[in-house]
C-alpha cells in the first residue's frame, strides 16, 4: 500500500516495480487511462518553470510516486556547478517532493559554453574526486541523496585508469550518493568500446544500486546510438535479469524519448519488466 500525504499524494519510497518516464505527449493519456504502473519519472529540466507543464506534472504526481531525473547539471564539469541551474533543481524538488532525485556521471559545459548533452568523463582519480565533490555540494544544497547514472559512451579517454564501474564505486564511496544503473547504457558502451558488460554488473557494490533504467538504442553501422527510440532489445533484457538476480528487486524505469509511441506501448514494456522482477524475487507489495 502506497503511503499518502495529507492531501492524498503518494509519498516514497518508489516501489520496487516498473515505472515509466513521463513525457509531455503522455500527460493527458496518463490521467485518462490511469495505467497500473508503479511510479513515474520526469526530466527535472522540463518542469523548472511555471505554466501548463508543471501543473500537468502535479496532476500526474497525485496518482503516482514520482522520481525527478536531471539531464542538465553536468556535475562532472571541471568549471564547477552552475548554481542557477542547481537552484532551479531545488525549486523543482521543493515543489514536487520526489521520492528519488537523480543525475548523470557526466560533464556538460566548459569555458562558458553548454553542450546540452551527457559528455563522458575520463575515469581517473582526479575525475572521481571532482565529481564526488560536486555530488556532495549538490546533495548538501538539495537536502537529498542523489542517484548518479552511468552514461552511454561513444569514445574513451586515453587518460582513463579505472574501469567505469570502479570509477562509479569510488564516487559512491567519496560522496555518499547511490547509483542508478542504466542497463542499456552499459550495453551500448560495452559494444561501442569493447568492454565487458557482465564485469560491470558483477563489479558494482550491491548496496549502492537503487534504481534501474531500461531503453532502446539504434544501430548506425558498427556503432550503437543511445536514442531511446525503440523497445528494449533482447540482450538488454538478459542483462537486466542478471542485474536483478544480483541487486534484488529495484525500481525499474522504461524510457522512450524519440519516436515516442502510444502510452500503452510503454506500459507493456513496464509490464515485461515487472514479470522479470516477479520471476526473480516476487513483486514487492
Amino acid at each position, binding site marked *: 500500500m502506497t503511503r499518502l500525504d495529507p492531501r492524498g499524494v503518494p509519498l516514497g519510497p518508489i516501489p520496487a516495480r516498473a515505472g515509466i518516464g513521463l513525457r509531455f505527449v503522455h500527460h493527458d493519456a496518463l490521467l485518462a487511462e490511469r495505467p497500473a504502473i508503479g511510479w513515474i519519472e520526469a526530466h527535472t*529540466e522540463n518542469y*523548472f*518553470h*511555471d*505554466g*501548463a*507543464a508543471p*501543473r500537468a506534472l502535479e496532476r500526474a504526481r497525485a496518482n503516482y510516486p514520482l522520481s525527478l531525473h536531471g*539531464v*542538465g*547539471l*553536468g556535475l562532472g*564539469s*571541471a*568549471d564547477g556547478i*552552475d548554481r*542557477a*541551474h542547481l537552484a*532551479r533543481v531545488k525549486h523543482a524538488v521543493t515543489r514536487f517532493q520526489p521520492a528519488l532525485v537523480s543525475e548523470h556521471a557526466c*560533464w*556538460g*559545459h*566548459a*569555458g*562558458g*559554453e*553548454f*553542450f*546540452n*548533452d551527457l*559528455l*563522458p*568523463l*575520463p575515469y*581517473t582519480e*582526479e*575525475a572521481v574526486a*571532482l565529481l564526488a565533490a560536486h555530488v556532495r555540494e549538490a546533495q548538501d544544497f538539495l537536502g537529498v541523496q542523489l542517484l548518479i547514472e552511468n552514461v552511454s559512451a*561513444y*569514445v*574513451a*579517454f*586515453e*587518460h582513463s585508469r579505472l574501469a567505469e564501474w570502479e570509477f562509479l564505486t569510488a564516487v559512491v564511496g567519496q560522496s555518499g550518493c547511490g547509483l542508478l544503473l542504466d542497463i542499456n547504457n552499459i550495453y551500448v558502451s560495452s559494444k*561501442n568500446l569493447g568492454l565487458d558488460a557482465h564485469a560491470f554488473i558483477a563489479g558494482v557494490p550491491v548496496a549502492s544500486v537503487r534504481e534501474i533504467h531500461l531503453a532502446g538504442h539504434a544501430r548506425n553501422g558498427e*556503432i550503437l*546510438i543511445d536514442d531511446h527510440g525503440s523497445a528494449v532489445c533482447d540482450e538488454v533484457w538478459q542483462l537486466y535479469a542478471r542485474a536483478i538476480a544480483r541487486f534484488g528487486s529495484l525500481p525499474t524505469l522504461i524510457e522512450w524519448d524519440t519516436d515516442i509511441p502510444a502510452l500503452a506501448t510503454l506500459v507493456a514494456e513496464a509490464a515485461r519488466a515487472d514479470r522479470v522482477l516477479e520471476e526473480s524475487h516476487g513483486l514487492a507489495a
Partner: protein
Amino acid sequence: MASLRELQRSFAAALRDSSADCPVTPAANLTIYRNNSAIAFRSALEATFPVIRARVGPDYFRQLAHLYRERFPSRSGDLHFVGGDFAAFLDAHLRDGDYAWLADLARIEWSREEALIAPEHPAVGAEVLARFNPEQLEELVFTFQPSLRLHTSPYPVFSVWLANQSENAPPVDQSLGSECGLIRIRAGSLQIEPLPPSLFSYLYALADGATLGGAMDRSGLDEPGFLNALGFVFREGLVTGVA
C-alpha cells in the same frame, strides 16, 4: 598529464571544430557528440520559433540555427534559454534585407516562449479603484500579469503570427504596415493579438511603470480613450495589483 579541465576544454574544442585534437578513441566517434549537441540546440530553437521555421523553410532555418549557435552558444543546461538572443541575431544578420521583419517575428515568438512558462496571478477588478480618493487616482501605478509582453513593429508581424497558426499559410501582405500588440497567458491559454496604437501606447506606458495620469499624458489619449483603455486592462484581467 593533462588536467580534467584541460581535457574538457580540448573535448569542447573538438565539438566546435572537427579538426581539433582530443585524446579519445575512437576519435571519429566525436561526430556523434558534435551532432547530439547541435541537434539539441536546433530542436530547442525549432520548438521556440515554429512560425519563423514555417516561413523560411527547414533548410534555411537549419542554416540560421548553425550561424546563431556560433555567435550565441548555449549558456545553460536548461534549453529553454537557447532562443533568448535569436531576435538580436536575426536583427544583425538580416538587417536591411527583405527578411528584416523576421527579427520582430522572433521577438513575438520569444515572448510566447516566456509567456508559456510565466505564472498567472489572480487579477484585480476595476472596483479596486474605489479604495482610493479621487485625487489619488492619477498617481496610481499598476502591476501586470507576469506573462504580459508588448511589442511594436514597423511590419505586420502579429498578422504573420496569426496567419501561420494553420498549415500552409500564404505570405502576409507586408504593405499592411506597422502593428503593435500583446502576448499573454490567460486561464492557461495563449493570447497573441494586435491592439489599436493608442490603447497600446497607454498600456505600454503603464506596464513601463508610469502612473495612470502619466500614462495618459505619454499616450496622448483623450478622456473617452482613457476610460476605454482602463476598462480594457481590467476586463482583460491584466492587472494584478494597484498601489
